Structures are given as structure tokens and as C-alpha cells.
């Protein structure tokens, strides 16, 4: 098996889109290839598959956990040293609300960041084929092909207008 990366110039985004279409015609669905860019392009610009994620669940989970911990900490702290001040209840709701609010938000933020890393599949110690020209504006299309199809895909990329094709066996 070989990993291939077709590189298209920044100003030839259309050529990259044409290459993905050609790949689909050659029998590779958008499950097989991946488009690499140095900046975010509008979703689906290159015919890549729709990205599905569950990031929105993370802040809710974090918020719930943060709220629970904050309520537990504040109420347990007051119950552990039950000093009645001015005849007021042991549990001071306004003060608890403030700390519970901060706890909720902290939990939501921490879980969101964890969610971002999880859903982005980062950190990724073996990211696969890559070329530094991607961050210089080139658009890359990667896919893994069997050795006997390397030449065909190479030709396909070049016919579509690729500036270079990188092959890693």
C-alpha cells in the first residue's frame, strides 16, 4: 500500500475540486480521500464528506459536573463548620450561587476544550502523509492506494492540475 498526496496551488482550488471529482469517478468515494488545507475553506468546497461531531454535548456534561462539584464543596464546607451568623440559615444561597456559577462555567470550558481535542483527533502522533507546502497555501488531497494503482492515481492528480504528487510507500 502507498500513501499519496496530490498538491494543488492556492490559486487553483478549482483544480483540487476537479481532482476529487475525478477520484470519485475512478471509484474512490469521499470516505477514501482527505483534503488538507492551510486555512479553513467553506465546508464541502472540495467535495469532501460532511464532518459530524458531538462537540456540543461536552459543555453540557462539564457544566453539570462543575455545578455538582461546586454545590457539594460549598454546602459541605458550611455544614462541616455550622456557625449560625445573625440567625441566618447555615447554607448561604447567594454566596453558593456565585461559586456554583463559576464552577459550572469552569466545568463547561474544561470539557469543551477536552471535546475539541477529542473530536479533532488531537494530539495525533502519527498523522500520516503530509507536506509543509500545505501551510504555504497548497491544497493537498491524500489517499491510500494499492501499489498497482499508484501510477494511475498519480496520472489522475497531474491531469487535474496538481503541482506535485508525493508518494510514501
Amino acid at each position, binding site marked *: 500500500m502507498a500513501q499519496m498526496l496530490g498538491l494543488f496551488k*492556492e490559486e487553483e482550488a478549482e483544480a483540487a475540486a476537479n481532482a476529487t471529482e475525478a477520484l470519485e469517478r475512478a471509484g474512490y468515494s469521499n470516505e477514501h480521500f*482527505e*483534503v*488538507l*488545507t*492551510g*486555512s*479553513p*475553506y*467553506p*465546508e464541502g468546497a472540495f467535495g*469532501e*464528506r460532511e*464532518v459530524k*461531531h458531538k*462537540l*456540543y454535548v461536552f*459543555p453540557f456534561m462539564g457544566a453539570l459536573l462543575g455545578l455538582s462539584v461546586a454545590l457539594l464543596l*460549598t454546602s459541605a*464546607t*458550611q455544614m*462541616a*463548620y455550622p456557625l449560625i*451568623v445573625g440567625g441566618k440559615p447555615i447554607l*448561604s444561597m447567594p*454566596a*453558593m450561587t*456565585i*461559586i456554583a*456559577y*463559576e*464552577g459550572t*462555567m*469552569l466545568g*463547561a*470550558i*474544561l470539557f*469543551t*476544550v477536552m471535546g*475539541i*481535542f477529542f*473530536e*479533532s*483527533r*488531537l*494530539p*495525533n*502522533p*502519527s*498523522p*500520516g502523509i*503530509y507536506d*509543509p507546502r*500545505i*501551510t*504555504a*497555501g497548497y491544497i493537498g488531497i491524500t489517499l491510500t492506494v494499492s501499489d498497482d494503482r499508484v501510477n494511475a492515481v498519480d496520472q489522475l492528480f497531474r491531469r487535474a492540475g496538481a503541482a506535485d504528487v508525493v508518494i510514501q510507500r
Partner: protein
Amino acid sequence: MQQRVALPHPQINADLLKNVLKAPAWYWGIMAFLGGVVIFGSVLVAYLLNKGFGLSGAHRPVMWGILIVDFVFWIGISHAGVMLSAILRLSKAEWRRPATRAAEVLTVFSLMIAALHPVVHAGRPWRIIYWSFPYDFSRGLWVNIRSPLVWDPSAIFTYLTGSTLFVIVALIPDMAVIRDRTTGIRHNIYSVMAMGWRGTPRQWKLQVVAGFLLSALLLPVFVSVHSIVSWDFAVMIGVEGYHVTIFAPYFVIGAVLSGVSAVVTMMILMKWMFGWGNYIRQEHIENLAKLLVVIGTGWLYFFFVEFIFALYSLESQEIALRELQAFTWPYWPLALVFIFLSYIIPIPMWMFPGVRRNIRIMFWSSLVVNVGMWLERFLIIVPGLARKQVWTFDWSTYHPSFIEVMIVVTAYALVFLLLLTFAKLFPLIPLFDIKEGDILGDEIVIGKRRVPALRVEE
């Protein structure tokens, strides 16, 4: 007004990573100077802690001096970043792109510096954790959660954690750009920090969603932080000038005014220092000036309401405090300078397009707003305590000592030092955001003219 110039990605990389890849000689000169100031200030702090807080000008009844003024000031500056970045991101304002990172980084560093002030002010910093969260298992004593001195650290901790993570998440794609342009040990370090980023559609999608989601989460936190800082004062029943219900929104909008002004100053400095004229353009400064007119006028409303309601109550204590602030030496000249610098001079000026488009005038006028806003905090904190009250037996006026003044100077130097250090390690303008703006930028033909147009971000 659009002055966009579409630049190829290699040029964007070269321009915005200029300082990261090879810093000019002047950069090291400034770093050395700021480092010297910070070292001198640190020595003075060590001396103060060794000899005791009596070396400061704090004296009964004014036990909160310019260190606490500076604490509130830097908390205020920290509101620039997330507020600006979050609101502009959520509203999809196109001109946000060069401003967001600088604003977020300013938030992080000013918040760190703000948190240092009460630590020094406490006199015994090694006990600060115990005082903030005194879980004393050996003696069975627990935190008094009714105290705002416990609310404050929890709010600052949440805000600092959130803002730092916000910056880190948005830095990952730019780490990959630096990784691809460095060799040797620097390449290895940036490779670790880029975490295997390749720029797949999934990674970009998550990056964009993360920007919106974290903005939405940090907005309510930023409002809570300065509200809680204001409650450090507002829940004090014994100090009339502090015990005000309007303090929370008044502090928040004051913080936004000083914070956004600081971002304008910083962006102009970045434009001058790094030659980023193609990225920080007239339109960005002009739009920020328009925003500041609105924020400043909102702040004036709260200032006015706070003052008028204090007088309207006809309570002798309140009236005595206002007399102290507005008519008594040495506070009255400070009050005059404060109101002129915070509002009367800059805001009417910014109504004129010619002024908003003049970068030099914008630099100085945004700078003076912060001088004024620093004085505002001084006039709230010091005269509030300086009044002779019924139970005050030991009374004296407050004069900041040399050490306190130097700590304030050191705080400025430290923020600049940290910002410049950041600028050496990471780009202060998000590269991917600028590139995305170029991709979304377009031109349409209307009749005989080609006019700039923008596709809306999805």
C-alpha cells in the same frame, strides 16, 4: 470602507512570522530594558515583603492603596480580549481577524499581573492560598464562602483558565505553520505543540466551532469576573462609597472601555513595531473607535447614575464622600483629569471620521483613556476609605510610597515583556484567520465597478 489587499499565503506567513523566525535588533533592546525594569521592581517587592507592608503608603484608614487600584485596573484591561474577540466572533464581524489574538493574549497577561497585586498587597504571599481557600483539616476550620475574597479567586481562576485555553486552542494551526518553517530543536518543539495538526476538514471545522463555543462560554465569565471584583467593594456595608448596588454593571462597562482602548493602543503599536500595515488597517482602528464611542457613552451613563443617586439620597456620609472626591485637595484635580481623559476629550473626538482614521491621534487618545480609567479606580478606592468616620481613631491621608509606584511601573513593564515574549514565540495575529478572510473575500461587479464583497461564514 474596505482596504483589503488579498495576499498569497507565503507572504502572510512571512509577514506575520517575521518576529518569530528572526527578531530584529531593536526587539532585544526593548526586551533588555523591560527585563531590567522588572528585575528592579522584583527586588523592591522582595524588600517590601522582607521589611513588611509598612513600607507602603497604606495607613489607617486607607489600607487599600494603589496596589489594589492597579489590581482593579488590570482586571479591567483583561476584559478587552475576550469581550472583543467573543462578541466580534459571535457577530461574525469581518474586521475582527487581526484583533482577536492580541486581545486574547492581553487578557491572559493582564489577568496574571492583576492577580499578583493582591498577593503582594497581602504582605505574606506564601499564605495567600490558605487565605483564599483555607481548608484547614488539622483544626477543622473551613472556607467562609460568604466572603468575596473567596469569590474573587474562584472567578479569576475560571477566567484565567478559560482565556488561556482559548488562546492555546486557536494557536494550534499556527503552531503547524511555524513547525513547517523551522528546523532542529525549534522544529521539534513546535511539532509537539502542533500536536500532529494537518489541516483536515474535521480539524478546521472543530477549530471554527471551538472559536464560537468558547466565545459563548467566556462571555458570561467575563461579566461575572468584574462583577465579583466590584462586590469586593459593594458588599462592604461600613464604607458608604463602596456599598453601591450599581457597582457590578458600572465596573463591567468601565472595564470594557479601558480594555478596548488598550487593544486599540496595542494594535497600533503592533502595526508600527512589526510593520503590519497590510493587516492592521485604518478600517480596523476606525471600527474600534466607533465601538468605543458607544461603550464610553454607556460607561458615562453608569458613572452619572452612580454619582446622582449618591447625592439624591441626601445622606450626609454620601455627600461628604462626593465632596471629598470632587472638591477636596488632592482629589479634585485628579477627578478633573479623570473625567477629561476618560470621556470629555477622547469620545467627542472619535465622532469625527478624520480623527478615527488618524492612527497617531487614535494611539494617543486611546492611551489617555486608560490614564483616566486608572484614576477612576483610584478615586473610587482611596477617597472611599480616606474619610474620617465615627470609629476612626487613627487617621491619616494616603501617599503612595516609592516602592508602590515602582510596583505599578513594574506591572506595566511585565505585561509588555510578556507580550513581547509571546510575540517572539507565537504570531500575534492569527495566520489562519487572516487567510480565511482572504478566501472568503471576493469581488462583485455592479455596473461598471468592481466592489469588494464578502461571503458570509457558515
